[in-house]
C-alpha cells in the first residue's frame, strides 16, 4: 500500500474539517459565547489546520493509486475527521473522551444519536442542568455542521476542493456515495462532486430561508437545516423539532427531509428544467409509495388514541389532522434516517412502532444523504426473489432483473444480496454485543443497533425519541460508533480494513 499517498489524502480531508471548524469559532464569537469558549474553539481549529497542513507540506507522495489506497483513504479519512472533529466537544464542551467520539461520529455519519442530556457526566464530574441548551452556541453549531459536512460526504467535498486527489477519484467517489447503482454526470469526478455539493448548498439555503420565515432564528434555522439536509437529526433543543410546536416548521422540515432522502441526481435534473423526471425514476416511485402507505396506515393506528409530543404535551383522542401530522413527520424522519422527532413514537401502538423500525432498514434512496440499506437495494432484492421463484419451473431462465429499464448484471446483484446479508448480519451482531455490554433489554439493544447501523439516531425503549445514549457504558458507545461508520460507508469500505490480506502486498 502506498502509505504516503494515503497520508496526504487523509491530511487533505482533515484540512477541510479544519477550515469548517474556523467558522465554529466565528459563530461562537458572533453569538456571544464566553471568551473562553471562543478561544478554545479557535485553538481547536488551529491545531487541526496546523497538524493537517504540516503533514501536507512534509509528506511527499508519488506512485500509483489502486483499490487498496482508495478504501484506506475513505475509511481512515472518516476516522481522522472524527478524531479532529471531536476536539471542540472535548475542549469547549467539557465532555469525556468516548462521549465526544460517539457524538462526532454520530454527527459525521448523519446518525443523530446523542449522548447529550441533563444526566450526562462531564469530565469535571458535573452535568449540564438543562441538557443541550447549556452548551456554548459554537459547540452546538459545530455539532450540526458535522452533519452537514458528512451528509454529502467529506471525501466528495475534498474531491471538489482538491482536484489533485483526482488520480483515484472514481474509487473514492464510489466508496462514499451510497447506493448500488451509479449514474455518472460528468467526465471528471471532481465536477460531479461540485454538482452534488452545489445542489446540496442550494437546497440548504432554501430550507434555512423557509424556516426563518416560520419564526426560527437564523441560528436555529441553519442548525436544523444541517440536521435535515444531511438526514442527520441533531437539534438545538432537547425536545428536538417538537420543541418548536409549530405545524409550519414540521411541514417544511418534512418536505426537505423527503428531498434529502431522494437521489440528488434527480434534483440536479429537476433544477436543469426537467421537474417530471422524479416520476420516471423507479426508485423514487417506490420510495414515495413506501412513505404514503406507511403514513396512511400509521395514521389509522393512531386515530382515537393518545399522542405524547416530545415537549411533553398530551393529545387525547387524536383526530385525523393530528394523526396525519405526527405520522407523516415521523415516517419521513425515520425512512430518510434523519431521526428528528415531534412525538414519542415509543408510546405508539405496536404496529406503528414496528413499522417504523422496519423503515429504518429500508432507508433513503441511492445517491441521497440518507442511510439504511437504500430503496434501490430493497427493490433489487425483491425482484431477484421473484425471478428465483420463477426459476423453480423455468429452470434455464437467464436472470433479467432491471432497474429503470437497465439490466443489472448478476455480479452486481450478488453484491447487493451480499450487502443485505452483511447488513442484517451486522445488525444481529451489534444487538447481541450490546446485550453483552450491559444493555438489559432486547427491544433497546435491537433498535439501538439498527438506529446506529442505519444512521437514524433514536430507537425504541431505552433509546426512544425522548431519551439519549448517555446512560450506556463506554464500551457500548465505542461499539455503536463503529456501527455508525459501517452504515455510512456501506459496510464494505470498513470491513476490508479487517481483512489480513488488505495489508499484504
Amino acid at each position, binding site marked *: 500500500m502506498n502509505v504516503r499517498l494515503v497520508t496526504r489524502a487523509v491530511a487533505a480531508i482533515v484540512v477541510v474539517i479544519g477550515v469548517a471548524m474556523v467558522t465554529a469559532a466565528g459563530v461562537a464569537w458572533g453569538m456571544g459565547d464566553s471568551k473562553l469558549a471562543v478561544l478554545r474553539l479557535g485553538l481547536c481549529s488551529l491545531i487541526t489546520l496546523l497538524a493537517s497542513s504540516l503533514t501536507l507540506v512534509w509528506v511527499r507522495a508519488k506512485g500509483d493509486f489502486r*483499490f487498496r489506497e482508495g478504501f484506506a483513504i475513505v475509511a481512515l479519512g472518516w476516522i481522522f475527521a472524527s478524531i479532529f472533529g471531536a476536539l471542540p466537544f472535548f475542549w469547549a464542551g467539557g465532555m469525556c473522551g468516548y462521549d465526544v467520539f460517539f457524538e462526532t461520529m454520530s454527527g459525521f455519519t448523519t446518525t443523530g444519536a446523542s449522548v447529550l442530556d441533563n444526566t450526562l457526566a462531564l469530565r469535571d464530574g458535573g452535568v449540564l442542568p438543562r441538557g443541550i441548551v447549556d452548551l456554548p452556541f459554537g459547540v452546538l453549531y459545530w455539532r450540526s455542521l458535522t452533519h452537514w459536512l458528512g451528509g454529502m460526504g467529506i471525501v466528495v467535498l475534498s474531491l471538489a476542493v482538491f482536484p489533485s486527489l*483526482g488520480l483515484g*477519484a*472514481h*474509487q473514492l467517489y464510489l466508496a462514499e456515495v451510497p447506493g448500488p447503482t451509479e449514474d455518472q454526470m*460528468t*467526465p471528471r*469526478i471532481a*465536477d460531479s462532486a461540485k454538482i452534488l455539493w452545489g445542489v446540496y448548498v442550494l437546497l440548504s439555503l432554501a430550507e434555512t430561508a423557509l424556516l426563518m420565515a416560520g419564526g426560527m432564528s437564523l441560528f436555529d434555522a441553519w442548525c436544523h437545516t444541517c440536521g435535515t439536509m444531511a438526514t442527520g437529526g441533531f437539534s438545538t433543543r432537547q425536545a428536538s423539532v417538537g420543541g418548536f410546536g409549530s405545524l409550519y416548521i414540521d411541514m417544511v422540515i418534512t418536505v426537505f427531509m423527503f428531498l434529502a432522502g431522494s437521489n440528488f441526481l434527480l434534483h440536479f435534473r429537476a433544477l436543469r428544467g426537467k421537474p417530471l423526471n422524479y416520476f420516471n425514476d423507479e426508485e423514487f416511485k417506490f420510495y414515495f409509495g413506501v412513505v404514503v402507505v406507511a403514513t396512511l396506515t400509521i395514521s389509522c393506528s393512531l386515530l382515537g388514541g393518545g399522542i405524547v409530543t416530545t415537549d411533553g404535551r398530551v393529545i387525547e383522542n387524536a383526530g385525523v389532522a393530528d394523526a396525519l401530522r405526527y405520522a407523516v413527520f415521523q415516517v419521513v424522519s425515520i425512512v430518510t434516517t434523519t431521526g428528528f422527532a415531534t412525538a414519542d413514537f415509543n408510546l405508539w401502538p405496536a404496529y406503528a412502532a414496528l413499522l417504523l423500525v422496519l423503515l429504518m432498514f429500508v432507508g433513503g434512496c441511492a445517491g441521497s444523504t440518507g442511510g439504511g440499506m437504500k430503496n434501490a437495494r430493497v427493490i433489487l432484492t425483491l425482484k431477484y426473489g421473484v425471478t428465483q421463484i420463477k426459476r423453480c419451473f423455468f429452470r434455464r431462465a437467464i436472470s433479467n432483473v432491471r432497474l429503470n429499464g437497465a439490466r443489472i448484471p448478476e455480479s452486481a446483484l450478488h453484491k447487493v444480496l451480499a450487502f443485505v446479508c452483511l447488513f442484517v448480519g451486522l445488525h444481529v451482531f451489534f444487538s447481541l454485543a450490546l446485550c453483552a455490554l450491559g444493555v438489559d433489554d432486547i427491544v433497546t439493544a435491537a433498535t439501538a443497533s439498527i438506529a446506529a447501523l442505519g444512521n437514524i439516531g433514536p430507537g425504541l425503549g431505552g433509546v426512544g425519541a425522548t431519551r439519549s445514549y448517555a446512560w450506556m457504558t463506554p464500551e457500548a458507545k465505542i461499539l455503536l460508533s463503529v456501527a455508525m461508520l459501517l452504515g455510512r460507508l456501506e459496510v464494505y469500505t470498513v470491513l476490508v480494513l479487517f481483512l489480513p490480506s488488505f495489508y499484504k502486498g
Partner: protein
Amino acid sequence: MNILILGAGELGKQLAWTLCDNRENKVTVVDHSAARLERLRERLDVMTVSGEAASVQALKNAGVDKAELLLAVTGSDASNVLACRVGRHFGVKRTVCRVSKDHFFSEGDGFSPAEMAIDHLIHPLNDCVDQIIRVIRHQCAIERFTLPSAKCEICAFHVRPRSAIVNVRLADFPEKTLLGRVRFSLVMRNRRLVMPGGEFVFKAGDEVYAAGTAQDIETLLDYVDVKIKHNGTMIVAGASPAARELVRRLKTDGQDVRVIESDGDLAREMMDEVGDGVMFIQGDANEADVLEDAGVDKCQTFIGALADDESNILGCLLAKNMGAGKVIAVTNKAEYVDIVPAMNAIDCGFSPRLVAVNSVLNLLSSETVRVHALLQRVQAYVYEFEVEARSPVCGKKIVNAFPPSTIISLLFRGGETRPATGDMVLEAGDTAVVIARPAEAARIEGLLRRKRILPI
C-alpha cells in the same frame, strides 16, 4: 477540453491515459463492451458510456453536443467514418478518424474525408510502415521523427561494435562540421539515461538520441553506420494489413522482398494485391526450418509483421539468432511496446498504436506547447515550447533557466535550427525542442509562460 473517444481498444485506452494526464481535459469513452469500460474506469478518471460508436443514442448519452474533439478509433473503419459525420451534426468542432485502409475516399473523384466531416484522417498502419521504411536503410537506426516546424529530425541510433565512433570522445568527434550542427541529446546505456557532455565517450551498445536538420541526421547516420556483408534481402513475416502495405512500399522502392505466411489462401490473396516480383514462402515464421528456407541467415532485415504480437517477438529473436542483419518487431499491445526496446536482440520495435497516439498528440497543442511524439526507448515525449517575451527564462542561459534534468535538444531561431548547448541565451520567439516526461513538461511550461498577475 471535452474529448470524446470512441472505442476502448488498445489505441482508445492509450489515448485516454495520455489525455487524462492533462487536468484540463474531460474525457468520455464509448465502447460496446461494458467489461472493457469497467476495467478502464478502475484506473482512470473518465466517464464511460456503453454502446455502438456510431449510434446516435450512445453519442448523445456521452454528451456529444458538448464535445470539442471527437476521436473515432474503433476497430471498424465504417463506424469511425460514420461517427464523425454524426458528431458534426451535433456540433463537434474537430473530428479525428482512424482508418486501416484508404478505400472510403477518393480525392480524384472529389470525395474527400471532409465530405464526411472528418478533419483529420489518421492511418496508423501507413504511418507505422513509414516509420519502418525510414529506419530500414541504416542498420543502426532505431527510430526517426520529423518535427514539422523546420524539417528537423530527432533520431535514435544504436552504436554497433564496429562503428567508427566506438571509444571516441564526444569533443573529439571526427566530423567536426557535424558536431557543430547536430545535438547529441541523450544516451541510453545499460538501460540508464546519460546526458552526454564533451567528455562523454561512445561505447558499443549505447543508444544515442541526436537532433538536427534532416540532411545532417542523414549524414550522421551514414557516418556511424556499419556496412554488413549480407545481401540486400528483406524478409517480412505475415500477411497482415501492415505487412501488405510494407511489402508494397518496399517493392516500389525496388527492394528484394520475401514474405513468410503459413496460411496459403491469405498468402495468395496478398500475392494478388502486391503483384509480381515478391517471393512467398508458406510456413510458420516461428520455425527454424522455414526461416532457413527463406534465407534468414543472409538477409539484411527481418520484419515480424504477423497479426499476433507474441509470434512477432519470438520470430524476431529466432531470426536474429540465425544471423539476420537487423530485426524489427511490429507489436500492438501496450505492455509489449515497453518491453520490446528492453530486448537487446531486437533492433527496433514499432507499434501502429503508438504511432497513432503520436499522430493524435500532434493535433493537440496548447498556446505555448506542442507535443510531438512519444519516444519509446526512454518513455518520454518530445515537446516544442515557445519562449514568450515576458517569461522568466527569457534572456537567461539554458543551463541556468531550466532544472538540470531537462533535455533541450534544439532551438529554432528566426527560421534557423541550432543545436542547443548550455551556454546559449534564450530569446523571445525561440522555440525549444525538449525531451521530457509529462510531469517535467508541466513544470517547464510553467517556466516558459509569461507570468500573469491578473488572470485574463
